[in-house]
């Protein structure tokens, strides 16, 4: 049953627009939502590698539900330090990943849309 709420289809389109030029993989999550992976995302010179994938789930409860947490491919810091708070090693969909746990307090469905939040997460990680 590959059917999706229109809110999710629209959110996916917005993610593609936000990350124009990047391959975006969309896989149904089995309960009416999707797993989204954006490829070739730049996380800046603080990390090796400096480019990785960014993944997240847009669940069937979106936009009522936040998009949380986010995942990127395994990264190490170029300054040799360990990762700070809200970044931890885990797995996502059967592959090693870093989990980024940034909740949207007093969430606004427009400001905290899947696309805008994904870009904010990318920038936040690059700034750490």
């Amino acid at each position, binding site marked *: 049953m590959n059917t*999706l709420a229109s809110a999710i289809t629209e959110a996916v389109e917005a993610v593609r627009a936000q990350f124009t030029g990047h391959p975006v993989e969309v896989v149904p999550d089995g309960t*009416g*939502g999707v797993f989204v992976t954006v490829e070739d995302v730049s996380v800046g010179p603080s990390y090796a590698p400096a480019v990785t994938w960014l993944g997240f*789930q847009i669940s069937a*409860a979106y936009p009522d539900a*936040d998009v949380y947490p986010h995942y990127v491919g395994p990264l190490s810091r170029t300054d040799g330090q360990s990762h700070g708070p809200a970044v931890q090693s885990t797995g996502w969909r059967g592959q090693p990943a870093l989990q980024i746990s940034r909740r949207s307090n007093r969430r606004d469905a427009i400001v905290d849309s899947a696309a805008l939040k994904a870009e904010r997460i990318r920038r936040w990680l690059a700034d750490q």
Partner: protein
Amino acid sequence: MARRPVNPPAEGWSLTIPHRLWTELSAHLFPSGGGAVLLAGHAEGARGPRLLAYDLITATNDTDYIPGEYGHRALAPSFVRDAAVRARDESAAYLAVHAHGGLDRVRFSSVDTASHERGYPALRQITGQTVGGLVLTPHAAAGDLWLADGSRTPLAETVIPGGNLLRLRPCPATATPAGPDHDRQARLLGDVGQETLNRLRVAVVGLGGVGSILVEELARLGVGTLVLIDDDTIEATNLPRLVAAGKDDIGLLKTDLAARNAQRANPRIRLIPKATRVEHPEALKELALCDWIFLAADSASARHWVNATVQQFLIPAVQVGVKIPVDSAGYVGQIHTATRIMLPGDGCLWCNRLIDSTQLAIDMHPKAERDAARYVPGVPAPSVITLNTLAAAEALNHFVLAATGLHDDDHDHAAVIHRPRTRQRDLQDPRQDANCRWCTPAGRLGRGDSGSVVQTATL
């Protein structure tokens, strides 16, 4: 005021009107006798198709509701046209409403029927939707529906989920005497009240400490059909709080234990167990066919999906929760139990900040990733059978009195908060956000299948 007749659920087409719309409609119709149009969504029901009123357009006397050519008063052509355009654009049923004198009985006059025959075929053609008339007294309702498929059918009942769960018919139902088993109970609820319980289809979401008690008592009360939803299995630490559970039951599905208990309490009960999470499409489909939902699962996703079902399908629910704050040093805060009445169109769990959107995102993760996604791992919350019982009893008593029309006040739907440590019992009125996307006409209220909870569009 004379006691309103209690009508058991009827077979056939029904109309459900949210309590707040009914209050507004009643003020407009009784006793002055105005006219109005209800816009309604559609859904399947356990006893027949349902119309779900979500918005009311009242006709201003003298301009929109004018002396008719054939007698009485009639809706002005411009008013009818505007309402019909909305019905067409919103894929909604169009129901023209007026009132008659009298109390317990109502029927269309020959003037009414003639005007339906003159007007509704064309209106149905214009809207492409079900159209019809509804005539009301404060205690009775009759409807004449002209269905989109070209047929015509009477409305079997009009349901108003408020402080009482009202069911209006053209004339009062006659009761079949309650069996001897329920004689003592029927002395309060009446034979019609007992029959009402038997014809209701009630869901219990979450079959843990609270849900287990709910199921036992609902079955013993004589509720005819129970939908049981929980994907969990029984663990040793659950045994002290599950009715009639023993060591052999460890590893058993909670739906199996609940079904066994319900069957023992009432061998004639009809059971629909769903050992899935509530957001599973099969569980949501069963929920949408219920007359009442008990929400006894304490997860953000259970809250969200039940809230969505309540608003979109106009099904009343009660949320039952127990909060026992104990910090890591062992300090015990204010214990409270909450029994929240969830009426469609009258404030919802989102409006009352009772769902955390991040928690909801985590709950929607696949099981394997849910714990890691939590970041700060959870510790098991305290749980005590006596506190569960307190909350469950409040919810069950509310349900029985509402279903049989015994609450003093049709409008009262305040939450009940018990604080057992200080022996307080407080009432809390729910609040509503003006443009809530669930519980207002601007949102999914009453949209039924046309905006199904699992609203689908092919990827």
